[in-house]
């Protein structure tokens, strides 16, 4: 059973550092996703595990064996990437059995595992179809089946659903997770789709500029990100700069343009008197026409857009700053019009405080 350990790997492309001393352990049976903005190094990381890219330094071990110098075919991994690469002249069955054939398995020996895999992926109806006759989703399912039939228990998925249409992608991501769990595989999945990462993973790794920013279970990273960049990159968030005025255990008081807001700290609290940044997700801000609740700002509706299951409001606060709020489509919150006065309440447990990043807020949140 594969546990993957990546230790201090470094990879430069000319002047650009793609991986900067990355350490990562992927536990046996874990479904781990890697996310981050373009150029963060996530693709180089999974390629280093696969053996497609040679790191400049550092080591990769799979199941205790040092594989850093081994080419991809000797690592026993199943590697699936965005560009679907099936053999066009072979039907689905032959594509899926290819790995076993190369290993020298006789046709009769191949039958069992191939049929089982085709059954698990609901591909039985396509056995004699050629790749050109398949939809994008069926093609990628064939590619995944092919990667797994040769007996790999470590599945490396490099944007496997990236080229597919949204609906197909959504259905397939749940199938993929089910497959990994049913077969007891270890999976590493690189994606640009954060909802995909949140919904399928046991652990998410957030990367930026060649380094791991934070990792943890999806719910933890979404609800209580330890790093301000995670709050920005996973989901959406409003950021409000302020100054710490009080800190007691996890509860803090922050001064923002004359008003005081109560929030909680996720890890280490900024010191009293120091600049800090508050963060809150748009769906956690409560809107009302009248309120006596604490932690409330009087605002004006600057814009509204209907997105189906929610309404996205842009609010303008008294100090001129803007807030993004995602409100349900029912109740008073659904009927606010541009220019209307509204109260925005920040529930204390949802308002998180972070230290003012030394490089400045804009740079810390930058995606490039």
């Amino acid at each position, binding site marked *: 059973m594969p546990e993957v350990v990546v230790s201090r790997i470094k990879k430069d492309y000319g002047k650009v550092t793609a991986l900067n001393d990355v350490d990562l352990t992927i536990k046996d049976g874990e479904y781990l996703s890697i996310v981050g903005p373009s150029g963060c190094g996530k693709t180089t990381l999974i390629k280093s595990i696969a053996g497609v890219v040679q790191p400049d330094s550092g080591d990769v071990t799979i199941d205790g064996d040092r594989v850093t110098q081994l080419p991809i075919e000797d690592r026993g991994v199943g590697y699936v990437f965005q560009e679907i690469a099936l053999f066009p002249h072979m039907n689905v069955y032959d594509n899926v059995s290819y790995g076993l054939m190369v290993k020298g398995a006789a046709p009769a020996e191949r039958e069992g595992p191939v049929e089982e895999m085709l059954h698990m992926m609901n591909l039985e109806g396509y056995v004699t179809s050629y790749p050109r006759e398949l939809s994008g989703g069926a093609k990628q399912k064939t590619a995944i089946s092919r990667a797994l039939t040769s007996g790999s228990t470590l599945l490396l998925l490099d944007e496997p659903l990236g080229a597919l249409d949204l609906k197909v992608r959504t259905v397939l991501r749940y199938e993929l997770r089910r497959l990994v769990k049913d077969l007891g595989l270890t999976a590493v999945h690189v994606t640009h789709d954060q909802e995909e990462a949140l919904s399928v993973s046991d652990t998410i790794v957030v990367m930026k500029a060649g380094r791991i920013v934070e990792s943890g279970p999806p719910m933890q990273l*979404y609800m209580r990100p330890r790093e301000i960049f995670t709050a920005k990159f996973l989901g959406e968030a409003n950021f409000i700069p302020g100054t710490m005025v009080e800190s007691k255990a996890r509860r803090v008081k922050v001064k923002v343009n004359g008003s005081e807001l109560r929030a909680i700290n996720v890890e280490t609290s900024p010191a009293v008197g120091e600049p800090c940044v508050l963060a809150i997700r748009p769906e956690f801000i409560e809107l009302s026409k009248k309120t006596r609740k604490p932690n409330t700002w009087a605002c004006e509706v600057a814009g509204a857009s*209907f997105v189906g299951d929610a309404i996205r409001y842009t609010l303008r606060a008294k100090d001129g700053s803007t807030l993004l709020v995602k409100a349900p489509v029912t109740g008073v919150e659904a009927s606010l019009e541009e220019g209307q006065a509204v109260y925005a309440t920040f529930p204390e447990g949802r308002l998180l405080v972070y230290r003012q990043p030394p490089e400045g807020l804009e740079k810390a949140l930058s995606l490039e």
Partner: protein
Amino acid sequence: MPSLRLLNVTKRFGSIKALDDVTFEVRDREYLCVLGSTGSGKTTLLRSIAGILTPDEGEIFIDGKKANTVTPEERNAVYVPQSYALFPHMTVLDNVMFGPLAKETKRAAAEETAMRVLKLVRLDGRADALPSELSGGMQQRVALARGLASGSSLLLLDEPLGALDVRLRLELRGELRKLAKDSGFTVIHVTHDQEEAMTIGDRILVLRRGKLQQHGTPYHVYNRPERIFVANFVGNTNFLEATVKSRGKEGSTLRLREDLEVRVLDPSFEPEEAVIVAIREEKTRITPEPVGDEPNRLSGEVKEVHFLGSYIRYAVRLTNGDEVAARLPVGEAEAEIRHGDWVSISFDPADTHIYEYPTLGLPSELEAS
């Protein structure tokens, strides 16, 4: 000022109808989003309006004038293709200024326009760079900027935010719309991203296999989907197969598999007719125990729990074997519903839509392309 009208437009490639009898209108200064999956005909539509393709049948009117035989250059429309074609030897600024200068605008004015749109696409800092020094996403933004600065007031944008990083795409949506509105552009924006279409468009046009499926405001398309395909493609919907049991003034009673019954408001189907009931995942209520006497209460077992960020989604198998999904806002989902729990599912008859049972069966209607 540009308005646009297509009348029975058909475009064939061999035996395939990329556009099949498409008729619609775009008003002056309207922002229309054309939504469809790969192969739906949306790019063909845009290229036909641009004049790069000639329809086999039907007519295209720009500003009330028949445009079928008018060359692309004379249509006063600017087409920004998905694959950005920038001049490689020119700087970003010169690429963007190309349109305004070609129209003999004074250099200072052209530069001001160019810098304004570059600022919008967050590339004012890279004005002196050559395209080869930029990432793919940045090059796409330059191409978009060039289109915006061209001086044409009919913009035809093919997946203008497609190559961008997700986060940047979200940020640029609002600004693109704002710029179009401030500048008085009429825009046709092709996308496969339903949320993008709903956020930016005044109206949405849904295409499938070259055929227009629905055309209306985002609110209308989302809340009154006229076809199963649209209900599935836009938003997240549960579909249940049913037979009409009876109908009366208050609506109809439907029979699901295994004799489960649900009530709906729509009385337009006859008893014994086979139908499909559609209900949005977010309008499907899920509670650990039955609460009060909700209408349409069913029960089932939670088969999967998916964390989606702002929502938690529960996939439930009902007692009759049908599968439905419900989603709760993450803030309200603390009631701890877990995998394997028995739960109560209910929904309001007013939140359902009823469709005639499709001739080719439900799965064929749900196929994206």
